[in-house]
């Protein structure tokens, strides 16, 4: 006897839902503090409807194919809303795998006398629900990744403020490790500020940079060269003794760059360059 899975599921839809709900209600991990029973039922019903509508004998085990886009969308929605409500990924996983138990139970009742078919469908349904489970995990992780990505962007923007210290002098304190992505942001901000303010001197303060290796040094040299191309001078300040040591040990040549130990001395140098003098006022 040939079994049409879609017809069978449609016929037994109510029963499956009941089983599923009962499973969940009986489970210890039910979080009725986070999601009320009515909402849970509505959510489950929506998902089940979509599944029942989509499956047929051919696509049963291809839970990641395009035919299941509707289901995937609902799953993603459930995963995200549950994550926001405070469910752990584990709770969501158990919820989805509960559907498997319900489906299998109905199948067992329906196809009692054909073990071969039963086995076949059991396997395929398992695969299907497993792929649903994977989808929820993926969505969960994707949501997290988006948060991390947004924060990374924010950090790199926050961490490169360009300060106008004097007419014609801008300073940029760098805090944290300098990698190539950040160097690019630093360079862009610095050069743009130089253009915007018409400054002819830029001070790059690296007292907040934990370590300078040859790569970081290269990035610094690039920034200085780019500043010079624009027609401004770039001073690097905040060279700590440890940094001076490593730079020399690594054999990095910074002799073409004006370097100063502190921001104060860099500023003094800058003043001298634009013929400014700072004096104590006479009483």
């Amino acid at each position, binding site marked *: 006897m040939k079994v049409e899975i879609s017809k069978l599921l449609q016929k037994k839809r109510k029963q499956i839902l009941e089983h599923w709900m009962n499973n969940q209600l009986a489970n210890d991990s039910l979080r009725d503090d986070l999601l009320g029973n009515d909402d849970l039922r509505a959510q489950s019903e929506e998902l089940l409807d979509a599944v029942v509508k989509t499956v047929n004998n051919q696509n049963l085990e291809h839970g990641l194919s395009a035919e299941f886009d509707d289901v995937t969308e609902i799953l993603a929605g459930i995963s995200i809303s549950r994550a926001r409500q405070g469910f752990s990924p584990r709770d969501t996983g158990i919820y989805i795998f509960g559907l498997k138990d319900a489906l299998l139970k109905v199948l067992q009742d329906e196809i009692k006398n054909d073990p071969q078919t039963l086995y076949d469908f059991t396997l395929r349904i398992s695969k299907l629900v497993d792929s649903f489970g994977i989808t929820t995990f993926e969505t969960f992780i994707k949501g997290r990744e988006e948060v991390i*990505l947004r924060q990374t962007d924010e950090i790199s923007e926050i961490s490169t403020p360009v300060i106008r210290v004097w007419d014609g002098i801008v300073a940029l304190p760098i805090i944290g490790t300098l990698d190539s*992505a950040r160097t*690019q942001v630093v360079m*862009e901000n610095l050069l743009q500020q130089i253009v915007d303010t018409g400054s002819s001197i830029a001070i790059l303060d690296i007292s907040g940079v934990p370590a300078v290796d040859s790569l970081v040094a290269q990035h610094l040299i690039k920034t200085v060269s780019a500043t010079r191309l624009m027609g401004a001078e770039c001073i690097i300040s905040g060279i700590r003794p440890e940094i001076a040591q490593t730079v020399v040990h690594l054999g990095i040549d910074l002799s073409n760059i004006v370097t100063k130990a502190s921001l104060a001395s860099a500023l003094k140098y800058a003043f001298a360059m634009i013929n400014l003098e700072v004096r104590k006022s006479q009483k």
Partner: protein
Amino acid sequence: MVIQREQDVVPFRNRVKEYAVKIGMSLVNQTKLITAASELVRNMLKYGGGGEALIEAVSKGRENGIRLTFSDKGPGIKDIQQAMKDGFSTGKSLGLGLPGTKRLVSEFDIKSAVGKGTTVTIIKWKNG
């Protein structure tokens, strides 16, 4: 897009720019991409006697980018490794073209057969 004359270069650059703007590439990366494209088009005209350039928008995971493919039917490059070295040039130029271009883009691929021609493919990711 077919590139046969020097005058084709400017419209080609503008086309690349349009594509880059469409995917929201930052100004610096746009400039890098267009500069790289300009280098490669010049090579194609100078050594390959013109050829074809293809502009495509590509994406990998969350990253969007632009892929440019340049192919000519010129004499080809004998020693690619040497051509990729800074300061090497058979013509009268600075020899920064190929290695410099590689530094400007995210991915760089060159295939060449002597007597058959050269194909260069570059990809610049939106945030790379």
